[in-house]
């Protein structure tokens, strides 16, 4: 049974098609890459899935149940967590508190939530900063915290929006290891990423969006040799990459 099914999802802002009849589905335990040039509609798709935008048309099923029009907090309750492209966390709260907010979803009591948060910060290797205020963390750490907050909600599906933006190659490798660890812990991942190298190295399957349309789908090899993709995007990116 598929974990997430996207069926002809279209999101229109006025005349602009941010997403146009996009369909794909994801099964338990995959790591999916979602790539495409800026403005391809990747983040819009995330927002549709996580309930920030209602899709204009089409349907979204999670574990076979429709989540198209449910608000973000319900989507989260169903087991979908996400991070944000720009660093977003609760600046005036400590690292642990940040993650406790997430942990409270599964653990109503403070003690339990606290323990959960400790575990997560262990997992994302942030334990030494547990009592720092989020605002005092370095950008990479803040990205990691974002990941941690999402993990604390114990999601089945985790959607990461450019977690590696602005990191050094070394830091990127750390994050990649982290993501593998997450996958091994049984969480399915969708990763929006610019850096093809990163995506290629961990994703089993990759979807490529361009101008709101899905132009290609397949494993890294296929994508790497897909004509449309190379035209649209990949060539230059590889060169840089």
């Amino acid at each position, binding site marked *: 049974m598929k974990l997430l099914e996207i069926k002809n999802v279209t999101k229109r802002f006025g005349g602009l098609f941010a997403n146009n009849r996009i369909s794909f589905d994801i099964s338990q335990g995959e790591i999916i890459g979602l790539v495409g040039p800026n403005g391809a509609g990747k983040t819009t798709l995330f927002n549709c899935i996580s309930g920030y935008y209602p899709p204009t048309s089409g349907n979204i099923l999670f574990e076979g149940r429709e989540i198209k029009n449910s608000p973000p907090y319900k989507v989260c309750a169903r087991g979908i*967590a996400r991070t944000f492209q720009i660093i977003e*966390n609760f600046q005036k*709260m400590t690292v642990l508190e940040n993650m406790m907010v997430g942990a409270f979803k599964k653990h109503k009591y403070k003690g339990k939530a606290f323990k959960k948060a400790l575990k997560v910060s262990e997992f994302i290797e942030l334990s030494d900063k547990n009592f720092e205020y989020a605002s005092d963390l370095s950008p990479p750490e803040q990205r990691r915290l974002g990941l941690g907050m999402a993990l604390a909600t114990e999601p089945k599906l985790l959607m990461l929006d450019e977690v590696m933006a602005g990191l050094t190659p070394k830091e990127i490798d750390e994050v990649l290891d982290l993501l593998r660890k997450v996958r091994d812990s049984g969480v399915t991942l969708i990763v929006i990423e610019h850096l093809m190298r990163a995506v290629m190295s961990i994703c089993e399957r990759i979807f490529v969006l361009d101008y709101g349309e899905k132009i290609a789908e397949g494993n890294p090899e296929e994508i790497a040799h897909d004509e449309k993709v190379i035209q649209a995007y990949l060539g230059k990116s590889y060169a840089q990459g």
Partner: protein
Amino acid sequence: MNVKKENLIRSSLLVISVFILIYPFLFKAAFYQHIMIMVFMYGLLAVSWDLMGGYANMFSFGHSAFFGIGAYTSTVMLIHWGINPWIGMIVGGCLSGIVGVLISYPTSKLRGHYFAIATLAFLFVTKILLENWRFVGAAQGLSVPMVKESSLLYFQFHGSKIPYYYIMLGLLVLGVVLTKWVIRSRIGYYLRALRESPEVAQSLGINTAKYRLIAIALSAFLAAISGTFYAQYVLYIDPPSAISLHISVQVVLISVFGGTGTINGPLLGTAILIPLINLIGAWLGGAGRGIAFMVFGAVIVVMCLIQPDGLIKYFEGWKLSNRRENEAA
């Protein structure tokens, strides 16, 4: 955080608590006791406001409407149905909580300034309605019927203020404990999260609207409690004295002065500003018309300039470090 400071703080806390407990016996003059009672009353108001304004980010200028609802409910119930004020206090609290929830619907989409204006309108609507509603005495207000002998049951004490002192102190402590408990529970974390970034909060499974409602309801409830106390204490209420922009503004200014979103800040603010106003007023008598509030206004402006986060900011170091150990354990 060094141990020396720890002990200093602990001991000073102890001294202060004791001081507050024996205060009425140190200062027998009713006026000083009155000031403290006002401090407690406004303290509870400010704390309740902080829950709404400081934590849930809803800057209400209509808070004295909740205060008034509390004052009126208990008094009306006492006068018309002879129901004892303690019950009236609870009923009033719940009623004002409900009103709070109702008013939060039209205003749910509003933020910051916009919300502030809406609450102003709400305040006036309530006031005008009470001013013209015969059943609740309209503009003539209501006199709480005096019972011959002091009685705890009927919440009236003649001759001495001391019972009022301890009752209001008790109510304040209860209010603060309740609020702090909420703030430290899941709800509190959620409210803080919402204040920081509603967007992310939602993504972590927080039902924004729901927790805003909880905050308003609780806040309105507490405000109403101090309203009932006011009615029983002054034994006479009318729309201008029970539901006035004056009270609302005072509460907001006091809280901001102390530092919002901290519970302690508003308490601190009250403890300083209320005695200040009362004493200047009493000291200058008729000669100093307006001076008390000139000082008040000036103090607020200055505070906004030098420390927008309020006086409490200067006491940040004053935390007892036990918090972490508790949680770690």
